[in-house]
């Protein structure tokens, strides 16, 4: 019996020791166990696969799992270069609440240049200087702040502009000062504009700010705690595109300037034509667009011309400073759209043939009247669809499509001409002066 009792006691002691040992081992690693981490990561992966999200590549191998609060941080492999040098990084943060419900968000770290030189693109909660942007899983902006020495100081707004110049030309609110950080990724320049206005100041240091943004997020202390690869898998060599200012606005008439700004540079200018123009001229360092004004022939509203120099193609759009002197903003805008399409055709088709003007007007009449009308309505929402379409027909009077209208419905053709005249002489539309 004794041996068996001893054996039973030994067995019980061994079990107790094993449990104690496991408990101690567990405590020594604080809240984390490889098994649970693995489980949590697996669950996080499953959750990620089940939710709707923008296309992105995640580096699960370098994911970090934390408890209290329960979250998983996964680097996003994303190549984004700051125009001032350095890199911006993104991380997916998956938070789990007490009811085991998960929520995800993307955190983008945009360090300022001095901070980047010392710390790279990692967010150190106590000392970060730069912008921290919160995006939803479809990469839509949710929240953002500019940090000074680790403190949330000012709200930061994320705007997508086709270029830095576009941001610089965008309307600014009086009484606020602006700073910006621009980064370049996948052919698009995104500017993080930090508007510093007295009404939006988060408050003083020490984390005791008065605004809602002064509260710290639960993930702030952890997003860069893990053993992440240096820059989330990005190419460490900064790439500064030299084409972001390849659309040059030389206009001097205030109304021309504001109209072109509204049409092409404004943050909301996402029309098909705006996208075409920016995509074309900012994507290639060898193609440049300049916008001028001068006195042209009386019948001309605008002219697109160009030249070739040392491998560079320089396209100029010139607005008629006298011919459009009384024109409404909508008419100036549609003239710009028309000329932008000429520029587009010229670049797309290399140098045009003898009758390029004719050929291009055929294409515009056949395919771009609706597109121009869309862009016009997007820029000036008060214009009716009918007026936008009528204005888009301007300058296409040599096209076969227009001749068809004249033949089949002369009264409609006449109405369109009268409408164009009314917008050109300023009796219809938004007045400039």
């Amino acid at each position, binding site marked *: 019996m004794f041996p068996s009792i001893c054996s039973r006691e030994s067995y019980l002691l061994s079990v107790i020791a094993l449990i104690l040992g496991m408990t101690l081992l567990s405590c020594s690693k604080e809240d984390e166990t490889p098994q649970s981490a693995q489980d949590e990561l697996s669950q996080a992966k499953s959750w990620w696969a089940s939710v709707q999200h923008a296309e992105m590549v995640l580096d699960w191998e370098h994911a970090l799992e934390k408890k209290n609060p329960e979250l998983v941080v996964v680097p996003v492999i994303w190549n984004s270069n700051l125009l001032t040098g350095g890199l911006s990084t993104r991380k997916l943060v998956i938070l789990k609440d007490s009811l085991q419900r998960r929520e995800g968000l993307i955190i983008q770290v945009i360090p300022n240049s001095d901070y980047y030189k010392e710390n790279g693109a990692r967010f150190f909660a106590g000392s970060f200087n730069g912008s921290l942007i919160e995006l939803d899983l479809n990469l839509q902006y949710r929240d953002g702040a500019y940090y000074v020495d680790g403190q949330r100081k000012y709200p930061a707004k994320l705007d997508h502009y086709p270029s830095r110049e576009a941001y610089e030309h965008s309307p600014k609110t009086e009484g606020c000062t602006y700073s910006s950080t621009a980064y370049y990724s996948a052919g698009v320049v995104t500017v993080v504009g930090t508007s510093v206005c007295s009404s939006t100041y988060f408050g003083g240091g020490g984390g005791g700010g008065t605004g809602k943004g002064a509260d710290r997020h639960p993930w702030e202390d952890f997003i860069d705690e893990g053993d992440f690869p240096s820059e989330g898998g990005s190419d460490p060599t900064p790439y500064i595109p030299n084409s972001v200012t390849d659309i040059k606005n030389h206009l001097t008439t205030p109304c021309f300037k504001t109209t072109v700004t509204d049409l092409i540079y404004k943050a909301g200018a996402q029309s098909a034509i705006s996208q075409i123009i920016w995509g074309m001229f900012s994507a290639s*360092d060898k193609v*440049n667009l*300049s916008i*001028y004004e*001068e*006195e*042209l022939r009386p*019948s*001309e*509203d*605008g*002219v*697109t*011309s*160009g*030249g*070739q*120099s*040392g*491998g*560079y193609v*320089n396209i*100029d759009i*010139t607005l008629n400073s006298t*011919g459009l002197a009384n024109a409404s903003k909508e*008419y100036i805008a549609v*003239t710009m759209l*028309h*000329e932008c399409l*000429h520029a587009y055709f*010229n670049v797309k088709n290399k*140098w*045009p043939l*003898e009758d*390029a*003007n004719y050929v*291009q007007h055929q294409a515009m009449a056949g395919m771009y009247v609706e597109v121009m009308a869309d862009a016009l309505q997007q820029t000036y929402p008060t214009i009716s669809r009918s007026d936008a379409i009528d204005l888009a027909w*301007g*300058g296409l*009077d040599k096209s076969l499509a227009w001749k068809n209208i004249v033949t089949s419905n002369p009264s409609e053709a006449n109405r369109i*001409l009268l409408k*164009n*005249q009314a917008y*050109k002489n300023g009796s219809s539309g938004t007045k400039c002066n």
Partner: protein
Amino acid sequence: MKRLIILIMPLFLSSHYLVAQRVDTSGMEYKRLHKEVSTNVRITMRLIDSVCEAIFTLVTIPVRDGQTGDSLTFTGKHQPYLQESFQRLVPRLRSIDWRQIFPDIKERDYDILLPYTYGFEAKECFDTLSTRAIKHKLSYELHLRQGSRVPSYVLPAMGITFWGRQWSKTGK
């Protein structure tokens, strides 16, 4: 690795100051200069309408005491619009490190010479200069510079071809 591409020599042996020159056209500095000149010289639509003549000019960019000067000079016909266009470039020219383009520059005072042409290939005006004509005109201009008190460094020719007024929107 740097490649020194162009040796300018044959035309200039008659000039004391235009000895064999190495021009680094593969470096970033030359590319920057090339882009500035290629993308910033423009003449107005009115002039495109009224001027239909290809032009060659030798632009002199003075560098004194190592600093690029303000006053550019132009040979040939007086072309104020071209001068205006180039004059706007001066601030950008000041940032060019000429020694990166001409590794042999030793002096503090010298002239940079830029042969520049422009021509027209428009429906209403077609006038361009051939390479041979450009060489001939350059040789002549350099011959006239003999006796200059400062050495000169000659850039490869640059130029622009205007396509003219091709597309317009007319309003009734």
